């Protein structure tokens, strides 16, 4: 069973602002989901490898080249709502 402190901690890890009402609601709902997935304990996975890729492809290499003619720098910078400074996005300070 989860408590509200755990929910607040997880929200902090996810950089997700939650209201008090959301904390309450998610405490109940996430507990329900985690209770449900307990069903997996029934499965014996002692000598089973975990799946990470389903079609068996591995080590796919490609040339590390910049492709021209796609989105331009201006178009990419045009996607932000923040101010542009010297062809970069200006953000607020990371340290107070």
């Amino acid at each position, binding site marked *: 069973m989860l408590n509200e402190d755990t929910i607040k901690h997880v929200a902090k890890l996810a950089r*997700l602002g939650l209201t008090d009402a959301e904390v309450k609601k998610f405490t109940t709902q996430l507990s329900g989901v985690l209770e449900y997935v307990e069903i*997996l304990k029934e499965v014996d*996975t002692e000598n089973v490898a*975990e799946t990470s890729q389903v*079609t068996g492809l591995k080590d*796919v290499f490609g040339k590390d080249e910049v492709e021209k003619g796609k989105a*331009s720098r201006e178009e990419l910078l045009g996607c932000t709502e923040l101010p542009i400074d010297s062809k970069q996005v200006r*953000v607020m300070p990371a340290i107070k």
Partner: protein
Amino acid sequence: MTDLNKLTIREVHEGLLVKKFTSVEVTKSCFDEIKKRNKDLNAFVSLDEDGAMKSAQEVDAKIANGEKISLLGGIPAAVKDLINTRGIKTTCCSPFLKDFVPPYDATVVEKLKAHDFVMLGKTNLDEFACGASTEHSCFGVTKNPYDLERVAGGSSGGSAAAVAADMAFYALGTDTGGSIRQPASLCGTYGMKVTYGRVSRSGVTAMASSWDTVGHFARNVDDVAIVLEAIAGRDVKDSTTPDIKVPDYSKFLSAGVKGLKIGLPKEYFGEGIEKETADTVKAAVLKLEKEGAQVVEVSLPSTKYAVAVYYITMPAELSTNLERFDGIRYGKKPANEPDNLVDYYFAARAEGFGDEIKRRIMIGTYVLSAGYYDAYYKKAQKVRTVIIQDFVKVFEKVDVLIAPVSPFPAFKIGELVDNPLAMYMADALTIPASAAGLPSLACPVGMSASGLPIGLQVIAPQFREDLCLQVGARV
């Protein structure tokens, strides 16, 4: 000329070539239908009428000049609104991206443009493709063309409704745990979920990367095959697409089912599945048996664990993929900008994400957090291996599997929205094939007594979409 919007792709193509009608007229017939019905259905969240008419005029000019056009040339279609379309808003139906205009096309869109694509507009979905009803869209729910009080399914509900209501000839969608097959089934249309890696996902907003696929909806199997051939194949921008030849899928449609071995997994016809749905699917299988198919009951014993595997691994991968949404390089900035970066992240994400996304980010972050990774994520990926082994064993005995798509026909709007676990069960029969990366074609197969569509799915081994289509053509 009336009802051009109801023809098949081949009929339109032939009509265009003999100049019986023009692509402009065909496109106009789609927009006429959209104007009549979209107000009620809410399948499209944005339209590009000018762009579509211009593309149609270009196709007509080519035909007039005697230039060759492909089967898909000038055929109007719709695109799920989490697939990037250059210069056209792509919102993922999230408040975060409500005004986002992508600076490049997804590979699937590029491929269709090489076939003289006429794009009508963008279709509704559950925010970031998370849901089974499109109720989690910032543009409101898509309604079922058969009953406006019911959902169209999800997450690709807008694409399904657009095709089912003859507003588009085909529509692109995505299927992670059932997001093409389930809405196709609820709306009575065809939905192709491809093998993992068969169609490039470059330029499509990622949800759960070890599950995500791009596919499509259409109104008959031949149309499904034509579109699949155009969008499938290797793409250097998506390293999960193997270099496996894309066959001429249409040529398998006339092969029939004689001699084919069809498995009916008993777990898909038992507890939790409405009897009417199970009976309708069984009746369709009986017809295939009369045509010479060999039908056997098989077992996929781990089926009941698939939803739990999905609701650990999917949120884990989703929460990781959505880390990039910080409101800085793209997406909405918060209404009141905090004066430091960390608070900015919290505010941007609090305002940008809807309820279901927050819930899944929370589950995903929890199961990946220190101390829980082995117990949840790793355990789930091990059980996923067991589910895959079930399919491997069963495909040693049969060529394809047939099963219901959804345990029940379209449910009422609002019926499941406050009960996340019940909503997750709507995908109980589509998640297992996704877990194993298998192709599956949803086909309409009948109607319930209350007048709602019922669908079945044909599941085949990896990269055997041809078998799905071959059987689907006889359903």
